[in-house]
């Protein structure tokens, strides 16, 4: 198998990302996101498993119901685009490969447990702040919103703290 193509220069990738974000603002008046979709998907899954409890839930309640499909939203199409764009990029660069990333001194089971735990914590955080790294950190900061920068400060300070704590599990 030939080796994958090198990654792009970070400034080039960042410029493309910034132009894509700007184009999204021009097309829709708002930026890019991700956790809006995972929230709607969670509501949909929760509604399938436990319809009554989900409909009476204070957070999910207004996203679900008889005639309401929580996934019927702009963000669903955007995340489908995100997934397709990532797949095209990975395949065309020869980087698509079934594999497991994560702290490489840990067993696979421990890595997957950390991935699940990290996902749960990240989602809880993103729901508190009404946005994740994409919706608030990237899109919010691009509008120079105070909220975007406050989010990024919390994100980076805590991320670096935990990052250094977990450093020993990386080669």
């Amino acid at each position, binding site marked *: 198998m030939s080796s994958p193509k090198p*990654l*792009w220069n970070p*400034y080039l*990738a*960042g*410029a493309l*990302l910034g132009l*894509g974000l*700007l*184009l999204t603002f*021009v097309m*829709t008046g708002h930026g*890019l*996101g991700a956790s809006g979709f995972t929230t709607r998907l969670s509501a949909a*899954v929760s509604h399938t498993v436990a319809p009554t409890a989900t409909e009476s839930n204070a*957070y999910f309640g207004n996203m679900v119901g008889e005639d309401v499909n929580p996934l019927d939203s*702009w963000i669903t*199409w*955007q995340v489908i*685009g*995100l*997934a397709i*764009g*990532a797949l*095209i990029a990975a395949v065309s660069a020869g*980087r698509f490969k079934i*594999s497991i*990333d994560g702290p*490489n001194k840990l067993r696979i089971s421990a890595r*997957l447990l950390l991935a699940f735990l*990290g*996902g749960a*914590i*990240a*989602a809880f*955080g993103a729901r*508190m*702040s009404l*946005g*994740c*790294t*994409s919706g*608030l950190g990237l899109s919010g900061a*691009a*509008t120079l*919103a*105070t*909220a975007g*920068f406050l989010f990024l400060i*919390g*994100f*980076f*300070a*805590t*991320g*670096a703290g935990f*990052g250094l704590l*977990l*450093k020993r599990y*990386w080669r």
Partner: protein
Amino acid sequence: MTLPMTISSVASGLIGGLIFGFALERAGFASGCKLTAQLRFKDWAVFKVMFTAILVCAVGLYVLDLAGVMTFDSIYIPTTYFWATLLGGVGVGAGMAIGGYCPGTSVVSFMSGRIDGLVFFFGLLFGTVGFAGVYERLEPLLDALPGPEAQTVPELLHVPTWVVLVALIAVAVTVGWLTRDKSSQEVCKPTSLRDAGVPMGAPRGAA
């Protein structure tokens, strides 16, 4: 022409998303190792990509506003709720350091074949349901200390927008210069499935 345009949500979502996903993958952000290497200060690509993207878009929005083509009033600017916004950042930061990703990059990760990215994504759904379960009890905290609606940093500091843009460009250039040699592209190699199941000490690059 008035902006933002009214374009169908399917088309605009797919176009914006395609560029988003493509750029993130080409930046190397499908890799939890690469993303968290920033948090271990081994690789500054996350900072450079994020800052460049924010600046390119912010300068573009500024120019469109100056030209009167698309003013800041016509775009969505999030509002600060001090504790909710800050603690949300804390949660997403901790989640990335522990699990390797954020919501968007976990999708990029599993679309490049990484199983931990998919597991992170399932974790997101679990965490969201958990949040919904305690939402009512958290509401007082979430609503506390709201800032002025859609406040921007130039408004907060009472300075012109261009001053903030120049300051951010100065930060990006300075950090970029200081970290110009830091890239761990060769260090990050995910474990292929052939090696999976082998505990610590598996030979690197054996696949």
